[in-house]
């Protein structure tokens, strides 16, 4: 096999492209620019950590099925863990979002990082919503019968039926988590690839 032939392989091209964009020292850095010195930076990693707890507690709930937590004190406790990890997730995510806005974190070719982050926020809202309507209790009855009017008014209710437990549960535990995790992964890889946005250069452009 000639070197040229190896160079033309899809695998070779993909590896070179990936390692050029994300060399190991960018993917797992051991230093960071000295301007990265604020508590606001904590909320990105907090969001990620909360997402892990959300997924872990959701997986435990999934083992025994959607009704388990109503009749088991352990199940109810796991549901409480799931609920509060979601609350922490959104709390951290919203602060992260506002922090990044006031840093204008899209500067320097980081627009797509912002876009993936914003879309992840929206997907997370939909994931949480489908969770609330899949609880199989009074809350899920009330929230779904109220929410149907908004979605139906757009025509979307014909395809996304919030009163259909099976459909909502599948979106909640399969489709939307996959979307959220993939988007989060892309977002983190973009942050690692481009680095954390530098401060505004005040002397020339802050006025």
């Amino acid at each position, binding site marked *: 096999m000639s070197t040229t032939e190896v160079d033309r392989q899809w695998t070779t091209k993909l590896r070179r492209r990936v390692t050029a964009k994300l060399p190991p020292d960018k993917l797992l850095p051991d*230093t960071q620019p000295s301007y990265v010195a*604020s508590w606001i930076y904590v909320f990105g990693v*907090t969001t990620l950590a909360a997402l892990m707890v959300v997924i872990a507690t959701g997986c435990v709930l999934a083992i025994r099925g959607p009704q388990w937590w109503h009749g088991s004190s352990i199940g109810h406790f796991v549901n409480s863990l799931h609920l509060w990890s979601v609350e922490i997730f959104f709390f951290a995510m919203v602060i992260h979002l506002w922090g990044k806005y006031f840093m204008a974190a899209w500067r320097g070719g980081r627009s797509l990082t912002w876009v993936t982050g914003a879309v992840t926020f929206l997907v997370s809202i939909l994931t949480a*919503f489908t969770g609330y309507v899949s609880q199989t209790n009074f809350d899920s009855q009330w*929230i779904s019968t109220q929410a149907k009017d*908004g979605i139906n008014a757009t025509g979307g*209710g014909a395809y996304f039926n919030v009163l259909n437990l099976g459909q909502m549960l599948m979106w909640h535990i399969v489709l939307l988590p996959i979307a959220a995790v993939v988007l989060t992964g892309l977002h983190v890889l973009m942050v690692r690839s481009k680095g954390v946005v530098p401060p505004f250069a005040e002397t020339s452009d802050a006025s």
Partner: protein
Amino acid sequence: MSKKAFRPDVDAPEWKGGHTPYDIIKEGTIALLVVAILTVALAVVFGSPDDKAVTLKRWANAAPVDFAATALSELNGTSGTATYGAPYNTNATGQQLGPLQLAKWVGARIPINAATAFVLDPLKSLPNQSTLTSDLAQWKTASNGTRQQWMNSYTKAATKMTFHAGQVVVNATNAGPVPIFINDLTQMARSGALDQALVTSNGFYTTDYTLPLLFIADGSYLENLATAQHLTGDQWGMMNETGSYPGQAWLWLYTFWYQVPPFNQSGNGDVLVWGLMMVLTAGLILVPFIPGVRSIPRKTRVYRLIWREHYKQ
């Protein structure tokens, strides 16, 4: 070739300063531990709400007149579902966004005939009811005009409907089989059989609760329970949940519009709120590309708080 001008809200200065040690794995591990401990603490202290779901059985036993009146509205075509329009039927145009009739264009993709689905079909499933069977046959062979006459007579008298000795009491004359229908359906609901009939109407295995949820939502019982828990639309609605829990606080902006004019006064309120939220959502995603919005961080200088150590130097 001329060098492109530096755009402060789009471009970032190249960092030529120093670096500090950073252990990303350690940071991630500590964050995970802290979040896990905080989650456990919140779950132990506050738990989570779990009010039992409302069943048709519970509703018909707790508020039989409300149930029977709702059943009548399903039969005579005046209930919320019967007059909804798309996606359940074509009995209303639905909401409009300007000239756009989005729901109507999509059509009745989840077709529901309220009288058939909520009243007649469940009654047909009751075994060994000779009077009911002949009444259903009488209904089937009657003309639309006769049916309407029966329903009008019963509906007029039903304003004084009571529930006495386990029976729905309405002093109606010339109402044909309607009194039997409403009373038998109420008995069926009180026994729990209607819950099963609606859930399994499309087969043994099901995960679709569209029919029973629509029926329950057409009555007042569910809404009264929600009002007592401060969950109705004018009480910031579905972003809340039962008890003193934060609920879906992240839906505050969506719910906010339902509290203010023109959205809370318009018959097209839902679609107007959704239209506005779609625009705002697109705006959030596209912030980096919107002149003015992307300049706010630089002009407000909030960033000086974030990077105060950097600017001190």
